[in-house]
C-alpha cells in the first residue's frame, strides 16, 4: 500500500513537472476546459435551483384555483359566485382572492398587488417585497405614492418588508388592505380576482375540478400540479435553448481536446522510449498518462464547478439572467438558495473527466508498447 502511494506520488511529481514545461499550452487548455465546465455547471445549477424554488413556492399554493372566463379571457368573480358553489365534499377551505398587476412607470416594471387572505395589513399601509425595497429605495415607515389606473394618486406607508428567503415570487409583491385594494383598482364590493380552494386529499383534486366545471360552466379550474408541470416545462425549454447554443462550443472543445490529447508529438514518443529503457513498465507509462488526464480534467472540473457555484448562488447567475429568468425585470440581485443535484454533478463529472482521460490514453497505448531498444539508436 505504501509502495503504491509512493509510486503514484513519484508519477504525479513527474507528470506535474512535465506539464509545467508547456505552461502556456496546458494552462490554456485548462482554462478553456474549466470555462466549459463553468457554463454547463452554471446552467445545471441555475435551472435546478429555479425548479426547486418554484416547487417550494408552489407547495404553499392552494391545490385548486378557480377563474371565471368571459369570452375566453380571465375575468372577475362576480358576487354570489362563492355561494353558488356551495359546499363540495372534500374542500377544506374556499376563499375569494384579490390580486392584480400594477405597472410602475418609474422603474418600468410590474408589481403584484395583493390582499393577504389572512388579513393583517392596516389600511393605508403596505408590506413590500425586497426588490421593491431596493429599487424604489424604500424603508420601514417611509411613504410611497402610486397613481392608480383611474389617474388618482394613492399614498401608503411601508409597514413591513417581506423576508427575502423566497425572493423569486415575493420580490415584487405589495400587500395591502382589502379596502385600499378595492379603491385603488376600483373593484366593486363582492368581486374577486379568483377563488382558491384547499383540498385535503390530493386524489380528490381532479374530481372536485370536474364538479366545479360542471356546476359553473363559465369557470376554469387550475390545478397546482398543472402549474408545477408548466413551470417545469418552461425551465426545461429555457435550459434547452442554452444547451443548444452551447452545443457548438462543446463540439469545438471536443475537437480541441481530442487534438491536444490524442496527437502524440515525436518528442513525447521519444520520452516514452527513454522511460521504458530506464526501467519503466508499460503500465507505469500508462498510469503516468492517466494521472495527466485526471489532473487536467479534474482541476478543470473543480475550478469550473466552484466558479459556477459562486456565479449562480453568490452573483445571482448574472450571465444568463436574461435567458433563464426573463419573466420579470425586478430581480437585479436575485439570490437562489444553494441547491445541488447529486446526479447532475456526477453526470457532469463523468462527461468531463472520463472522455478526456480516455483521449489521452489512446495514443499512449501504442507508443508505450513499442520496443525499448529503439532508444539506443535515437
Amino acid at each position: 500500500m505504501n509502495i503504491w502511494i509512493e509510486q503514484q506520488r513519484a508519477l504525479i511529481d513527474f507528470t506535474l513537472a512535465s506539464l509545467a514545461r508547456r505552461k502556456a499550452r496546458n494552462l490554456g487548455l485548462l482554462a478553456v476546459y474549466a470555462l466549459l465546465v463553468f457554463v454547463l455547471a452554471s446552467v445545471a445549477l441555475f435551472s435546478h435551483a429555479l425548479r426547486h424554488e418554484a416547487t417550494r413556492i408552489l407547495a404553499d399554493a392552494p391545490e385548486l384555483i378557480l377563474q371565471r372566463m368571459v369570452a375566453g379571457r380571465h375575468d372577475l368573480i362576480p358576487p354570489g359566485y362563492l355561494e353558488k358553489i356551495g359546499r363540495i365534499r372534500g374542500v377544506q377551505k374556499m376563499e375569494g382572492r384579490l390580486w392584480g398587476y400594477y405597472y410602475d412607470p418609474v422603474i418600468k416594471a410590474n408589481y403584484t398587488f395583493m390582499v393577504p387572505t389572512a388579513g393583517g395589513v392596516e389600511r393605508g399601509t403596505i408590506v413590500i417585497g425586497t426588490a421593491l425595497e431596493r429599487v424604489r429605495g424604500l424603508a420601514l415607515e417611509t411613504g410611497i405614492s402610486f397613481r392608480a389606473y383611474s389617474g388618482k394618486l394613492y399614498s401608503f406607508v411601508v409597514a413591513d418588508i417581506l423576508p427575502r428567503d423566497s425572493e423569486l415570487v415575493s420580490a415584487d409583491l405589495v400587500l395591502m388592505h382589502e379596502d385600499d385594494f378595492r379603491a385603488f383598482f376600483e373593484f366593486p364590493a363582492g368581486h374577486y380576482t379568483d377563488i382558491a380552494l384547499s383540498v385535503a386529499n390530493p386524489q380528490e383534486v381532479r374530481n372536485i375540478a370536474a364538479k366545479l366545471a360542471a356546476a359553473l360552466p363559465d369557470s376554469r379550474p387550475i390545478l397546482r400540479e398543472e402549474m408545477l408541470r408548466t413551470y417545469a416545462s418552461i425551465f426545461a425549454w429555457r435550459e434547452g435553448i442554452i444547451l443548444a447554443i452551447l452545443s457548438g462550443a462543446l463540439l469545438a472543445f471536443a475537437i480541441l481536446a481530442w487534438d491536444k490529447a490524442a496527437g502524440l508529438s515525436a518528442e513525447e514518443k521519444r520520452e516514452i522510449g527513454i522511460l521504458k529503457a530506464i526501467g519503466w513498465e508499460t503500465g507505469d507509462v500508462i498510469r503516468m498518462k492517466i494521472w495527466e488526464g485526471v489532473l487536467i480534467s479534474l482541476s478543470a472540473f473543480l475550478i469550473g464547478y466552484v466558479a459556477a457555484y459562486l456565479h449562480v448562488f453568490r452573483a445571482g447567475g448574472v450571465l444568463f439572467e436574461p435567458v433563464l429568468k426573463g419573466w420579470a425585470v425586478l430581480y437585479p440581485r436575485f439570490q437562489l438558495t444553494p441547491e445541488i443535484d447529486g446526479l447532475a454533478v456526477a453526470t457532469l463529472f463523468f462527461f468531463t473527466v472520463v472522455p478526456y482521460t480516455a483521449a489521452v490514453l489512446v495514443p499512449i497505448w501504442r507508443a508505450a508498447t513499442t520496443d525499448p531498444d529503439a532508444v539506443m539508436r535515437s
Partner: protein
Amino acid sequence: MIELIEVRKAFNQGKHNEFWALDGINLNIEAHRVTALCGPSGSGKTTLLTLIGCLARPTSGRARFKGEDISGLPERFLTQLRRRSFGFVFQQFNLIRGLSAEENVMLPAAPSGLPQREVRAKAAMLLDRLRLAHRRTARVEWLSGGEQQRVAIARALINDPEVLIADEPTANLDTTLAREFLAILESFASEGRTVILSSHDPLVIQSAAVHRVINMRDGRIVDNQ
C-alpha cells in the same frame, strides 16, 4: 556474471530486408570489471549491449544473468530486472528536456515505490559525487555536454545497479572529459560494479581503466583478449 551462448539477433526477420546484426556470439562477462566492446561501425556493438541490458531479446541462443536464463523471460520481468540490475548511459544521453537535472536523475526510481524523500536525497548525493551539486535544479538542456553526461551517469546509478552499460560514452566528449569519464568508471568497478561499454575511441580501449577489450566485426567476436 553475464553469459551469452550462441546468441544471434535478426532485424526484420522473415522479410526481404532480413539482417543478422549478431551472428553466433559466445561471451562471458566477469563481474566487477570494466569490459569494452570495440569494432567498426555496424559491427553490432549497440545491438549486443541491448541484449546484455535486457532491452531486447536474442532471436536465438541463450543469455544468462547471474546463472539465470533471461532469454525467455516475459517483458514484465525483463523490465524489472533492467530497472533493478542495470543502469544505462546512452550515447545521446537521452535526458528528458525541460526537466531539472535532479528530476531526470530520479526518474528510474519512480516505479520502485521508494519514498520520494529518500530518492531525492540519493539523487543529491550522486550529483554531489559527480560534482554537479550546484546544477541540481538547472534544466538539462542548459547543461554542457560533459555535465549532461554526468547527469546521465547519476541517473544510471539511482537504483544502485550491479551493471552499468554505456554505449559510446565518450563520443561526445573531448579528451579531458573522456579521461574524467574513464576515472569515474574505474571507481565504479572498484566499488564492485560491473561496467560494459562500447567504443571505437582508442583513448578508451587503451585506457588502464578498461580491463578487457572485445573486438567485433560483422556481428561476430573476432578476438578476445
